């Protein structure tokens, strides 16, 4: 085996070393900015270079099967043998490049964005740690190793969301993210245990090879396992019902939102389903659930995005919505399409977030200069910024067209394949038509709200204020450079998987075939006649176009007022603005009863009453009582002692003389 492949372990090890080095710097010399920048960005660029070399070596190798590199025996317990091992196959190669690539760009961007933050070293330490865990997640060769990465990225998400923890709202957001994720993780854990109970193995390669023999297709075992795994996905990838943490996660720094909550961590759920495609192919009911929840989430989140004013919230709900598309894809059996959308989404969503970061950065500077306390993230305080931030505006339009699904931008190809796959399954069950319809409507809404975002932010009259205007300017090159790269990728990324319909070579689909072959055999895709396919394509593009045009015609940016003067929303708009009151409902149904339970039952009754009262204090009281009884016996009266004596004699006689 060529030597480059042997260095697979080095790819995650580099960011880990970066974490350690930056961590030490954060503790000892927090102001050593240059060192932190060089180490933090350097390890990522090195990891990216190494990843490219390894994938090229893998390509040249030509082995279809996964290459597993075991390192050491972690948990040999009875029948369970968990080894720390990394796996390189077509799917993990794709993820590897996406993670290292997009992470590198965001690290570079962060140098500019976080340059003046006192926690600079800590930030890069956490960011490096996150990349390490994400790489462990995508390169893991077994469920436990993947779970280490799964939990690790959750931890880093918490650390980075609550990065500015001095403010209560940021710390709360971090906690919310971690706790909601944990609920999903229970599903993952139980699924892991069930897999082991059914099959005795937790390693991917042998498990997926044997799965068709070990599980009854459509049986309760594999359905339960896949549904529980999906519960973990709803937590990590923010689907219904566990998506509520993602909008709150926008409290963290914008590059964090771009990296973790757009491009990489939230896609872990999609990766998991794609990785376990054999299991999902064996459980069509579960796959339908996956697709259904994906479609529903996509539509639901898009409706909320229509009425959000915070620019990052719009993008957060957009992420939830696009993740729904990805799950619709993998739920329909179109695993390659889902992964394709994952990749293209990473490009344009990261671009959107980083662009929003540029805007926020500019507004912050302006408000700082004029000592204003206005919200730098509220779109009602923006407007007409295309004049001041031309590069950012142009690149964000590229991303908007990509996400809307306008050809030839990247999003068009990926979204279209997913919708076709969903529609094709309508032959099996009419419910799939509903999913397709939801997806189509979501495309319309996506185009609408993204255009809304662009109109309110970059066009129309400026609402930031007369005194702030001179301070608004484009971001430095260290921030705009990565935007350009991502813009190019959003434009050209579609080339990865041009469908046969358009005389493309479907390169990604074929590349992933070794991974999806078994699933494709178990659940063969249904061919849609060319005419229908063209109709679907045109419908999708038409929906997107309609959304954009409607936004341009219906919305009136000139009627907006700055945020501090804006009236509250009314009626149905208020419901959308308040996110369909889901957070309030969850608070009422789950959080409050849980807090009540903890305070009244667990604390007051059990802890104070039982354990302290009956247990600790009770034992003391019992001792005292027994002691008091004992002291009553010491009367000093001889007659009393004699009575006891005779009583004892009687007892002895009674037992001894039989």
């Amino acid at each position: 085996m060529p030597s480059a492949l042997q260095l697979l372990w080095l790819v995650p090890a580099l960011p880990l070393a970066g974490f350690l080095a930056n961590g030490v710097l954060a503790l000892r010399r927090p102001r050593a900015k240059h060192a932190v920048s060089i180490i933090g960005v350097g390890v990522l660029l090195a990891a990216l270079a190494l990843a490219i070399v390894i994938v090229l070596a893998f390509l040249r190798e030509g082995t279809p099967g996964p290459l597993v590199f075991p390192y050491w025996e972690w948990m040999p317990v009875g029948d369970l043998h968990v080894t720390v091992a990394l796996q390189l196959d077509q799917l993990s190669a794709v993820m590897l490049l996406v993670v290292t690539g997009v992470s590198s760009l965001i690290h570079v961007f962060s140098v500019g964005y976080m340059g003046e933050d006192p926690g600079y070293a800590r930030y890069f330490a956490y960011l490096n740690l996150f990349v390490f865990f994400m790489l462990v997640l995508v390169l893991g060769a077994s469920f436990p190793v993947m779970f280490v990465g799964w939990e690790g990225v959750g931890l880093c998400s918490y650390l980075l969301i609550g990065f500015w923890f001095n403010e209560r709202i940021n710390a709360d957001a971090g906690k919310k993210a971690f706790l909601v994720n944990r609920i999903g993780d229970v599903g993952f854990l139980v699924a892991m245990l069930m897999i082991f109970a059914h099959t005795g193995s937790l390693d991917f390669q042998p498990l997926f090879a044997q799965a068709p023999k070990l599980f009854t297709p459509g049986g309760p075992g594999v359905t339960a396992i896949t549904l529980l795994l999906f519960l973990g996905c709803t937590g990590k990838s923010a689907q219904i019902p566990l998506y509520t943490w993602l909008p709150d996660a926008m409290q963290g720094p914008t590059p964090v939102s771009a990296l973790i909550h757009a491009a990489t961590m939230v896609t872990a759920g999609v990766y998991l389903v794609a990785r376990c495609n054999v299991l999902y192919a064996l459980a069509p009911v579960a796959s339908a659930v996956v697709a259904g929840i994906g479609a529903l989430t996509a539509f639901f989140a898009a409706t909320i995005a229509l009425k959000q004013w915070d620019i990052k919230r719009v993008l957060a709900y957009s992420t939830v919505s696009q993740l729904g598309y990805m799950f619709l894809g993998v739920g329909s059996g179109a695993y390659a399409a889902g992964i394709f959308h994952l990749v293209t989404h990473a490009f344009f969503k990261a671009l959107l977030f980083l662009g929003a970061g540029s805007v926020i950065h500019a507004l912050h500077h302006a408000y700082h200069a004029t000592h204003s306390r206005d919200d730098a993230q509220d779109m009602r305080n923006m407007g007409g910024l295309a004049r001041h931030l031309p590069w950012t505006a142009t690149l964000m339009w590229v991303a908007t067209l990509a996400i809307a699904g306008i050809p030839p931008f990247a999003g068009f190809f990926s979204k279209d394949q997913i919708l076709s796959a969903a529609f094709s399954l309508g032959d099996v069950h009419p419910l799939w038509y509903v999913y397709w319809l939801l997806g189509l409507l979501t495309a319309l809404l996506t185009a609408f709200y993204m255009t809304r975002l662009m109109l309110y932010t970059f066009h129309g009259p400026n609402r930031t204020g007369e005194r702030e205007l001179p301070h608004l300017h484009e971001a430095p090159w260290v921030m705009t450079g990565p935007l350009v790269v991502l813009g190019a990728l959003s434009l050209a990324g579609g080339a990865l998987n041009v469908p046969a319909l358009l005389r493309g070579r479907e390169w990604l689909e074929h590349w992933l075939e070794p991974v999806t072959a078994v699933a494709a055999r178990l659940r063969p895709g249904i061919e849609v006649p060319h005419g229908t396919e063209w109709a679907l394509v045109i419908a999708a593009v038409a929906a997107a176009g309609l959304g954009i045009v409607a936004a341009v015609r219906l919305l009136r940016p000139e009627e907006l007022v700055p945020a501090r003067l804006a009236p509250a929303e009314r009626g149905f708009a208020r419901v959308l603005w308040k996110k369909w009151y889901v957070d309030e409902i969850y608070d009422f149904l789950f959080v409050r009863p849980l807090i009540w339970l903890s305070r009244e039952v667990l604390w007051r009754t059990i802890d104070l009453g039982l354990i302290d009262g009956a247990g600790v204090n009770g034992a003391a009281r019992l001792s005292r009582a027994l002691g008091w009884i004992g002291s009553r016996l010491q009367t000093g009266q001889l007659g009393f002692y004699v009575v006891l004596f005779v009583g004892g004699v009687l007892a002895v006689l009674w037992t001894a003389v039989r």
Partner: protein
Amino acid sequence: MLLGPSLAVSAVLFALGVAGVLLRRNAIVIFMCVELMLNAVNLTFVALAQSLGVAGQIFVFFVMAVAAAEAAVGLAIILAIYRHKQTVDLQNINLLKG
């Protein structure tokens, strides 16, 4: 032949002695009831000696010797207590209390 009845009489005397110890307050009378118990035991020994051999009577001999010694010492103690407390009523003597 008289063994059974002798043992019964001895039992009665012993029980009466115990009842007396529990009943009386005067230390000297309690002591006398203890002597009564010892005598009941002596009767048992003698009754059994009739059928089992002379060892019983030898034992009675020693019991009497010990009873004598014990009476001497015990009464000396009661005297000493009387000197301190001016009473031999056991209900008032509770130095062992606590």
